[in-house]
């Protein structure tokens, strides 16, 4: 089960394997590769915006639009989703004490749809922005890029539906009969929640993609107002999928923190029940708030109020997670190894991002922030500050179990300081840019707006720091996998013997508690 990379076996054996740990490796490695590809695009955007009016690095607006579109799509569909599915593949069967995923072949098929979808997105390089609002995506977006994007997203959507079915069946049906559902570790609970959410949310988007495609082919007019369609319908369909999707990205990262925080605090989890409750609540309430993305589309007052209440209702459950983490750490003998640093950093930024989210949902404030860099800063604070922090923490945590070697704590420290510093500098600054009125998705801005220039330059320097820290991360992964210190496989993080690691489970009768 462990030491996957140390067994001398040819790479094609991993590639054509259907074993859950092999598929997990494929998922995580693909996810990290796409993270770096999309990260390069982000650095291009930030560097370009450092110099207003000069067309540095990105010579024309069409290319700029394509770059931010593919950056967004890649980070969401080819990094966040596959990475969570990867860690889920590795841990869920172990956590529910089953030999593999319920449908191993389906699992491999779901993974192999990712490179295909990714290739379509990257070869097409569409310019519709990741939301692809109609009617721009119907009547103006150049083909074949937009069509390739639609097919690519279609494939990725089906892949995530297939892997969700697999997770749901594995957890509910293949769980060891002695293990009650409420005692299943919280990471598996997070995967169960997001899988069920995917099954409800994703088909809506799949349908709207087909409608977009037929609209583009001219055989229908669902979203095209010139033949009687309504663009607002697309917005509803899109956000009905993608507001829940926010939680689908977020909850696995929270679940990973539930794996890390108690172990590195050397204390039992404060409350398993409140963690389960908060996951289920978020899974339900996540569907009650999609309209807050549409306040300014001409929505009437009552509808806005309903969606505001739906949005605010999600906050107490998120707060319960934060409380659970803090209460677990309280009075613990905390060992700040790299995974713990990233997990705690992620919780701090999760709190900041959540506070900003409450302001967004307040209707009058939304009219100041919507469509500006505030929203860019807000959603990146979630995606980088919480989700990527949780994922990176998990990568450091899994590293010794997968390679049999220890990562370099020194390089991990540099990575942590750079990533924390960079994240705060870029995304907090972008909040301020939004308050100064800078619209998002703009190729260039007037150089005489001095406050915009200054804030953009501060943000760009932050992005370079953030990007630079990932060079140390990559170097650490590659170097340590080959030449790192041998890890003590009984207790690689020196936490003391009685803390159980799920990877060490070889027989189905082990306990899942601490």
């Amino acid at each position, binding site marked *: 089960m462990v030491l996957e990379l140390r067994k001398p076996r040819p790479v094609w054996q991993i590639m054509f394997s259907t074993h859950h740990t092999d598929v997990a490796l494929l998922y995580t490695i693909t996810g990290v590769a796409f993270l770096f590809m999309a990260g390069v695009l982000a650095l291009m955007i930030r560097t370009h915006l450092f110099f207003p009016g000069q067309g540095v690095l990105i010579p024309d607006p069409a290319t700029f*639009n394509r770059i931010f579109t593919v950056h967004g799509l890649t980070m969401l569909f080819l990094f966040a989703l596959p990475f969570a599915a990867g860690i889920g593949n590795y841990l869920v069967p172990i956590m529910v004490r089953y030999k593999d995923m319920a449908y191993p072949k389906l699992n491999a098929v779901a993974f192999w749809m990712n490179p295909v979808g990714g290739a379509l997105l990257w070869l097409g390089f569409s310019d519709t922005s990741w939301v692809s609002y109609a009617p721009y995506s119907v009547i*103006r977006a150049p083909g074949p890029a937009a069509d390739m994007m639609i097919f690519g997203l279609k494939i990725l959507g089906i892949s995530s539906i297939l892997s969700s079915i697999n997770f749901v069946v594995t957890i509910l049906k293949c769980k060891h009969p002695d293990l009650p559902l409420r005692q299943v570790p919280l990471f598996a609970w997070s995967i169960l929640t997001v899988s069920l959410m995917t099954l409800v949310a994703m088909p809506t988007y799949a349908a709207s993609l087909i409608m977009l495609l037929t609209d583009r082919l001219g055989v229908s007019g669902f979203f095209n107002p*010139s033949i009687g369609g309504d663009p607002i319908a697309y917005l509803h369909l899109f956000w009905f999928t993608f507001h829940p999707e926010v939680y689908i990205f977020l909850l696995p990262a929270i679940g990973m923190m539930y794996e890390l925080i108690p172990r590195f605090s050397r204390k039992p989890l404060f409350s398993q029940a409140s963690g389960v409750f908060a996951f289920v609540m978020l899974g339900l309430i996540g569907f009650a708030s999609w309209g807050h993305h549409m306040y300014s*589309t001409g929505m009437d007052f009552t509808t*806005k109020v309903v969606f505001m209440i739906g949005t605010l209702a999600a906050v107490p459950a998120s*707060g319960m997670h934060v409380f659970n983490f803090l209460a677990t750490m309280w009075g613990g003998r905390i060992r700040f190894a790299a995974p713990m640093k990233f997990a705690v950093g992620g919780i701090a930024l999760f709190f900041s991002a959540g506070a900003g989210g409450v302001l967004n949902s307040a*209707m009058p404030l939304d009219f100041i922030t919507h469509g500006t860099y505030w929203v860019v800063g807000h959603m990146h604070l979630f995606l980088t500050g919480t989700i990527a922090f949780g994922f990176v923490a998990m990568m450091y945590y899994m590293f010794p179990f997968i390679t049999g070697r220890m990562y370099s704590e020194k390089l991990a420290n540099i990575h942590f300081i750079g990533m924390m510093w960079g994240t705060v500098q870029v995304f907090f600054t972008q909040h301020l840019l939004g308050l100064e009125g800078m*619209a*998002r998705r703009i*190729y260039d801005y007037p150089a005489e707006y001095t406050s915009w220039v200054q804030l953009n330059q501060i943000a760009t320097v932050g992005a370079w720091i953030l990007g630079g820290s990932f060079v140390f991360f990559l170097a650490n992964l590659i170097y340590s996998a080959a030449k790192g210190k041998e890890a003590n496989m009984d207790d690689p993080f020196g936490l003391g013997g009685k803390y159980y690691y799920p990877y060490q489970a070889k027989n189905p009768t082990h306990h899942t508690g601490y």
Partner: protein
Amino acid sequence: MGHDTVEWVFVAIVIAILVYVGVDSWIVQKAVEEIPADAETIKVTGQQWFWSFEHEDGTQEKIELHLIKGHAYKFEIYAKDVMHSFNIPDYVVFEDAVPGHVNHAWFSPDQAGKFPIQCREYCGIGHYQMRGTLVVEENKS
């Protein structure tokens, strides 16, 4: 206090803050959306990639919009091709221009001078330069 009590106190505090935010937004938004009866209507049309305006007396303007300080104005917002978003950041005027729909926003300028107008919904290659100027003039009469 037991474990559960501490957590419930925490949740109650969070809910209290949220109720305050919700109620306050309700009151403010209600007031903001009340359009004064004497507001002058201005038709705003967004298209790739400029704004055009039509006053109540039929005068038409492009890119620059001239208004008078102290008057109330109601915008009727249209879009010709794709979605745009009509935005005067300094006065928090912000509403999407959606093809096939008419949206409304209103404001009353209280300072003379020039203020930027921009598009805040991605609309293609020229989105970044879909800018205009609001010129607020002193009331001469």
